[in-house]
């Protein structure tokens, strides 16, 4: 088990840097995790992060990339529901990187 | 289709469920499911009633291990491990009822 230090508070993560307790997440932690992934957060990034958190809240799973892409297209507009758009924001994979920043577990089936 | 069952019908409804649901085919009883094919057990009647629709096989080593190889109900075929493999190979699909 590892941990990260954000704003004077310690948060437990797994060996790959995913937050253990997603209820501890806050935007500050999100920003910190984004830095560890070398992702510069913009409104577009936050839109995806917030979407992921809402999705998890509702279904208790992190969506597979294909499912995320489709759902984003439905919710935020077809121009954003493409893997080009999402990989543009999160070069190492929207599933892997965005889920980590959102404080979610790694999506099932994502290795 | 080959249906493989490994639980005693007296403690688990897997075999009963299989008999009630599947349309027919092969049934192989292994591990604790071999008790289903022994004479005098409370499930014997249901197994016998299903023999028209299903071909029942019993894995001999599991039966022997439980000291019941001399009590197999009539109409059930005893198979060894090679026979197990043959059953799997002879069927297009195989369902293991857990």
């Amino acid at each position, binding site marked *: 088990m590892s941990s990260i230090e954000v704003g004077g508070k310690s948060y437990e993560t797994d060996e790959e840097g995913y937050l253990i307790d997603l209820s501890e997440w806050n935007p500050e932690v999100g920003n910190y995790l984004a830095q560890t992934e070398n992702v510069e957060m913009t409104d577009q990034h936050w839109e995806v992060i917030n979407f992921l958190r809402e999705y998890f809240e*509702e*279904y*208790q*799973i992190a*969506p*597979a990339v*294909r*499912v995320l892409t*489709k*759902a984003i297209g439905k919710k935020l507009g077809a121009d954003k529901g493409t893997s080009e758009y999402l990989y543009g924001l999160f070069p190492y994979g929207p599933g892997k990187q965005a889920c980590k920043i959102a404080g979610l577990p790694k999506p*099932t*089936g994502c290795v | *289709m080959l249906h493989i069952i490994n639980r005693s019908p007296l403690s688990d*409804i*897997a075999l009963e*469920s299989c008999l*009630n*649901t*599947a*349309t027919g085919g092969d049934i192989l009883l292994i591990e604790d499911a071999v008790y289903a094919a022994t004479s005098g057990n409370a499930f014997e009647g249901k197994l016998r009633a299903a023999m028209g629709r299903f071909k029942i096989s019993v894995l001999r080593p599991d039966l022997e291990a439980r000291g019941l190889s001399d009590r197999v109900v009539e109409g059930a075929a005893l198979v060894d491990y090679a026979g197990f493999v043959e059953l799997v190979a002879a069927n297009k*699909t*195989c*369902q*293991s*009822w*857990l």
Partner: protein
Amino acid sequence: MSDIKKFMFVNRKAPYGTIYALESLEVVLITAAFDQDVSLVFMDDGVYQMKKGQQTKGIEIKNFSPAYRALDGYDVEKLYVDKESMDARGLTEDDLLVDVTVLSRAEMGALMDEQDVILSF
């Protein structure tokens, strides 16, 4: 993928008492990524997996039942529940957390015959 196979997942165990229900769900979610023809069957105690209103805080196990509502987004739309199993447990379709197709034992058996692969949990 050119070769689409018919995969059926047969769920016969209640949730939480054993790990089977959760394991099945995870395998289903992974299989869904491979564009196969996936059906889910809930029979015997497996119908309890579909029960609405599961609250697992008190047993400190993750409540995975909301994930069944996500299956639609994974293009897993074929959910079948055995009527006899529901009846035997005092459940009706209104008790279930997603829309399902209710089948008789005979219909279920016929559906199994159509499959290429059957995985039992």
